[in-house]
């Protein structure tokens, strides 16, 4: 969650989406990961420290989150004998 200097929320995220102060998706903030992986994770990440938003410049923020491509999901994650391979994305 990012707030202004008065503590008013500006944006927040559940790991896979970014919301504005009214909890609506911001422009381009819906589904920041591949679609099959998004559905696989039920569209949100309930775990701690899976994403972080950093203020970079005036009005510019980077959000980092662990993710997985749909290809890797199908070929690795969902194959019991293989390991998972999350990657970090930057939004």
């Amino acid at each position, binding site marked *: 969650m990012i707030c202004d200097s008065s503590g008013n929320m500006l944006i927040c995220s559940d790991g896979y989406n970014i919301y*504005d102060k009214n909890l609506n998706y911001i422009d*381009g*903030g819906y589904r920041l990961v591949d679609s099959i992986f998004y559905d696989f994770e039920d569209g949100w990440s309930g775990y701690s420290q899976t994403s972080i938003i950093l203020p970079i410049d005036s*009005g510019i923020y980077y959000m980092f989150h*662990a993710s997985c491509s749909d290809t890797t999901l199908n070929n690795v994650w969902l194959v019991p004998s293989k390991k*998972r391979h*999350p990657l*970090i994305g*930057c*939004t």
Partner: protein
Amino acid sequence: MKANNGAGKVIERMKPIVQGEYLSKTQMMACKHANGQDWWLLKMMHDSVSVYTFLITKDSVYNFGKQSFPYPRKTGVNNGYWEIMGQIQLSPDGKNLRLLVIICTMSCFWLIFDRCTGKLSNMQKKNIPILPTNFPASANEPDDKYSTGLSFSPNGRFIYTVNYTNIQQYDTWDPDSSTAWFHVANMDTVYDYLWGTLCHI
């Protein structure tokens, strides 16, 4: 954030900064670079005590690579699911050298993080006392051995760890690690599975 009358807009999406690695789903933390402008981003691997370090500037993201330490990492009874456990935290003081604490399921590691260089050093393994789970429904898990959450006190002196049903405190000023641990609390209300695994401190 200036776009759409202040509601904001995503300018660039889904830009990988590292791929093909077996990263922890959780355990990501950032702190300011010693120059006061840039950021360091730290991200744990899943199956080893290894930390990826990235330097974040307003112009780019620089991958400083992976620093690995020779300790086995236990990931619990099911390597896939239990990866959700664990946090990493940096001490909150303003010094250039900060204490990085990693907690992952059944292990706790300390390192010194240099905010000037991004280097980690002086790895130590700390044993968290294993207390009884102390809950009737936990007959199959009598020991509360899965540590999940982690936090520093505001002054950086105390470290708090949370397991399923117990919170413990470590006094970093105590030179004797055998007396540094203090049991803060255990579960005294309705058991909630999520308390330990998801709702970290």
